[in-house]
């Protein structure tokens, strides 16, 4: 297999470009999208590369159709992705729920810009966190990854596909205009060194009868592929283990939705990834994710040099969420600070996790600029003084 970009060496590329290349290395062969700043470069790269790897890149009439096409592609066995930004992400919410309900492995990239509505198209924000987790209606779960560097955007795109396939679920790669547009050195692995996961397929005709049944006891049903000889019914209505609509049976609904939630929740330890910096002996914790985590690392170093024992928890996954880990940190430290480029979203998750064991303070910033390390330091020092 020949790749339309250099592999097995490093390159100096934008985050958006890194996402496109990683998707192709992860086995993605279908992309459907609608152009939008600051995600358009992903589409541009896919339009260029897909025909060269026998894949398809197609411009749809809007974002509703884009995610619908991606779901369809996944049901014929193709790894598929779409990418957008806030306004388009809002339009995708309905079919995101359809992907969750039909347990369709897809990857949706949201390169966040300032909202609401069309907002500040060229500027970064982290305002879509709660939307990524809870934007579609009804009880559900899914997976949300948050890269902080171009290398992480690359690595987490591959991981997004693997998690989607492993857990038969949509995965959101939640990045932002800053990571999407900045250029950094990225190590692009040799394709044979990339670990790839493929969805579980029915072993035989008997298994294929239960495309929504927990027949292996791992909460993840094997997924029959259209065109491979099985008849399968796929619906957004509440359905039984065979996929047949059963819309008034409370027990069937409860079983289905609890399994969809539990296949993520019970595998939290496998899904959640985080990094810590100087957290072991910290008296003050900063909890951060995405682009802001980089400023937070510098802020921790600056606070330490001024005698404040600070430490950082950098979240690489914001959903599922490890509330228990936050409580442990809260038992250790006096205060937790949550800098984010919004008016408070992960802050609320942290506060719930902290469970009153430590003070939790938000360091909000909106308008398009990433927090500087100095701003985080100043906010921490101001609060630490006022106690």
């Amino acid at each position, binding site marked *: 297999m020949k790749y339309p970009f250099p592999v097995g060496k490093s390159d100096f590329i934008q985050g958006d470009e890194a996402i496109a290349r990683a998707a192709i290395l992860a086995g993605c062969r279908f992309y459907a999208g609608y152009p939008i700043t600051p995600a358009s470069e992903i589409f541009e790269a896919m339009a260029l590369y897909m025909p060269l790897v026998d894949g398809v890149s197609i411009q749809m009439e809007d974002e509703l159709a884009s995610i619908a096409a991606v779901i369809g592609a996944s049901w014929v066995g193709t790894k598929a992705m779409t990418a957008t930004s806030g306004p388009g992400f809002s339009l995708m919410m309905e079919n995101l729920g359809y992907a969750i309900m039909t347990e369709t492995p897809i990857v949706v990239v949201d390169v966040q810009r300032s909202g609401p509505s069309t907002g500040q198209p060229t500027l970064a924000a982290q305002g879509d966190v709660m939307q990524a987790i809870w934007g579609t209606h009804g009880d559900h779960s899914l997976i949300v990854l948050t890269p902080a560097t171009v290398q992480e955007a690359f690595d987490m795109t591959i991981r997004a596909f693997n998690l989607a396939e492993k857990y038969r679920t949509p995965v959101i790669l939640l990045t932002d205009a800053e990571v999407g547009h*900045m250029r950094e050195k990225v190590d692009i692995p040799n394709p044979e060194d990339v670990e790839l996961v493929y969805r579980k397929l029915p072993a035989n005709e008997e298994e294929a009868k239960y495309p929504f049944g927990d027949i292996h006891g791992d909460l993840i049903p094997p997924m029959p592929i259209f065109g491979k000889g099985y008849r399968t019914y796929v619906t957004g209505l509440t359905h039984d283990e065979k996929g047949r609509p059963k819309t008034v049976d409370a027990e069937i609904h409860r079983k289905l939705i609890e399994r969809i939630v539990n296949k993520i929740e019970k595998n939290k330890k496998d899904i959640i990834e985080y990094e810590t910096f100087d957290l072991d002996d910290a008296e003050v914790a900063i909890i951060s994710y995405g682009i802001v985590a980089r400023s937070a690392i*510098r802020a921790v170093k600056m606070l330490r040099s001024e005698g404040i024992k600070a430490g950082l928890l950098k979240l690489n996954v914001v959903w599922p969420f490890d509330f228990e880990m936050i409580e442990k940190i809260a038992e250790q430290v006096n205060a937790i600070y949550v800098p984010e480029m919004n008016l408070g979203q992960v802050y609320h998750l942290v506060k719930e996790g902290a469970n009153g064991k430590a003070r939790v303070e938000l360091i909000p910033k909106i308008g398009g600029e990433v927090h500087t390390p100095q701003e985080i330091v100043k906010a921490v020092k101001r609060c630490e003084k006022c106690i």
Partner: protein
Amino acid sequence: MQIRLAGIGGQGVVLAGVILGEAAAIEGLNVVQTQDYSSASRGGHSIADVVISKEPIYDLIVTKADVLVALAQLGYDTTKDSLRKDGLLIIDTDLVKPDREFIGAPFTRIAEETTGLALTVNMVALGYLVAKTGVVKKESVEEAIRRRVPKGTEDINLKAFRVGYEEGSK
């Protein structure tokens, strides 16, 4: 090292930043390149930031630039406060009237005289910057230029870069 290039849209400021960043990446250094431009494609301010370091880079926003290259008055006015007190200011001496110590040359005029194209000013200034700071090797930049400029314009861009480099080596 934090380097900030500032000018107006159309001067190729962002491309110069990308090429400088690519040169650093070729040398195996850590590098982050970001840009800030107004939505106007011509005439608005245009800024490219390049942070180069042997260590991992956490500071993405240039708050205290070590070097500021200003190719237009608007670019200078927008960014002059971000240059640290003892930082190095490099300007197009025909187009920028600074209010502090500086070095520089009439980059746009040199570009016109050398290549016949004012829009190679970005390469002239880049050559001057690399000669004065030694932040990356001349050869790395030349390789990055070959990779990044539109096909068929490699020679003219290399020529402009080398003239700027000579000017900076004087």
